[in-house]
């Protein structure tokens, strides 16, 4: 469909070759959607991975109440994105808690709220996304940490290695495949960001994403099936690279760590 001019209620559609793609790369809405999606992925994925690793290290060792902390950190990630987006919509208002916190540390919050100001809207949504998904990846890191034998740390301690040395030379190298896996699946998920944008800004204030573009041009406002499909195919091509990586990780028969 990406190579046709098919539209709803249009019977005489035909192949138009690469024309949709040429138009897409001249369409400033599409280019901004492409740019925003890349900002979203590049901004959220590394921060989420690092925070998830940090949290996993914090709750890895046995201590009293560990289960409560683990469950509490993890719980937001299995709730509905719609619910989370509704809550944060309120928190991000100009008189909401986030604005209050910003004022407390000496920043000036945007006049009409974080989601209306074009310079903060996308970053606010990204921060929420990190908050929500970090517990999920923490859990995957924890599974990886469980596989590191204690003897390694004991040996390192006997030789006088500090906590950071142990982290640098034992934990991180062993967790590398896990981290790779997390980065890949999180990227695939983040390239398809839609729900939070639909609920929180409706694609306004410079937050249009690729999937939102497909949604808006394909099945709501314009019903340009061919044009929207072309955009979807570009997204597919980008995600395809990551999918192949994920697939090659999954296909290994032995556990990846």
């Amino acid at each position, binding site marked *: 469909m990406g190579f046709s001019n098919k539209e709803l209620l249009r019977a005489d559609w035909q192949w138009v070759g690469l024309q949709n793609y040429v138009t897409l790369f001249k369409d400033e809405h599409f280019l901004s959607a492409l740019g925003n999606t890349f900002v979203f992925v590049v901004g959220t994925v590394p921060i989420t991975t690092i925070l998830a690793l940090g949290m996993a290290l914090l709750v890895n060792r046995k201590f009293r109440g560990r289960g409560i902390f683990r469950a509490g950190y993890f719980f937001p990630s299995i709730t*509905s994105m719609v619910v989370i987006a*509704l*809550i944060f919509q309120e928190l991000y208002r100009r008189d909401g808690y986030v604005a209050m916190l910003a004022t407390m540390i000496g920043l000036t919050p945007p006049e009409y709220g974080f989601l209306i100001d074009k310079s903060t809207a996308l970053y606010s949504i990204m921060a929420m996304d990190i908050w929500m998904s970090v517990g999920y990846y923490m859990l995957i890191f924890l*599974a990886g940490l469980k596989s590191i034998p204690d003897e390694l740390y004991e040996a390192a301690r006997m030789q006088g290695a500090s906590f950071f040395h142990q982290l640098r030379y034992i934990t991180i190298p062993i967790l590398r495949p896990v981290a790779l896996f997390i980065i890949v699946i999180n990227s695939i998920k983040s390239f398809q960001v839609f729900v939070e944008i639909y609920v929180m800004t409706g694609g306004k204030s410079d937050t249009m994403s690729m999937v939102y573009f497909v949604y808006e041009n394909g099945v709501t406002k314009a019903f340009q099936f061919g044009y929207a499909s072309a955009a979807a195919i570009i997204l597919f091509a980008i995600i*395809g690279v990551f999918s192949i990586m994920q697939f090659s990780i999954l296909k290994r028969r032995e*556990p990846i760590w």
Partner: protein
Amino acid sequence: MVTYWLKTLLKYVGLTAILAVMLFPLVWMIRVAFLPSSSGSVTLTSLFASSFTFENFTYLFVTGSIGRDLFNSAFVAIVVTAGNILFCFMVAYVLARQPNVWTKLLFGSVLVVLMIPAHILIVPLYSLMTSDMMPIHDTYYALILPWLVYPIGIFLVKQYIESLPTSMEEAARIDGASELRIICQVVMPLCKPVLAVLAIQVFFTNWNSLLFPLILTSSEHLRTLPVGLSHYGSDEWAPLQHKMAGATIAVIPVLILFIILQRRIVSGITAGAVKQ
């Protein structure tokens, strides 16, 4: 000794601070859901107000249509989950136990579909369902049919069945059990752990999904909970207390399932990652 206690104290302070950040939005949601909507707009100090009421919930169920939304969500999620358990298992069994050219070809195509992100299907699904070929747009079929078999489910169950020893099936076969009986009474019970993992993942995915219900239905009586909530959310005039009560209703089943099935959920997530 003193430094040890100090360290422990610091650790707990840090841990609790993170916990507060992670749970505050949800606590706030539940608090606001129980504030009377007549008390006007919610302010920063409402968190500490003493008023407490169920009126937002009764409003949503009596005047609003959230009961219907809740039913739709539950109905669709349960049917889809049951379908996935049945169909993924059936396909996976054949793929795992009868390797020949055709099943290998079929498994290859499953892997190809696995690599296609669902969001690519927005336009094709919509245009298919509004065409004469398969006019099921805006029916329950539109919510259920596309998701009855998840390729990742076939993949997971197939890997699991392959890891099972064949000796039990052979023993049953020698004792004269029919193929159907072997499947139902030998293989399926052995697959319980992986089917539970699959069921949980499918249920949560479906319960929380917004995009496809939004596109593939338009009538109010087919709204699922996330679609209904996003409608309340975009209504500027709806009081915040009602929105948060609706959000709380959507979270409660997840919370209950999480408490009951915590162990299985956790092992499911790591199973997807570890592939043992």
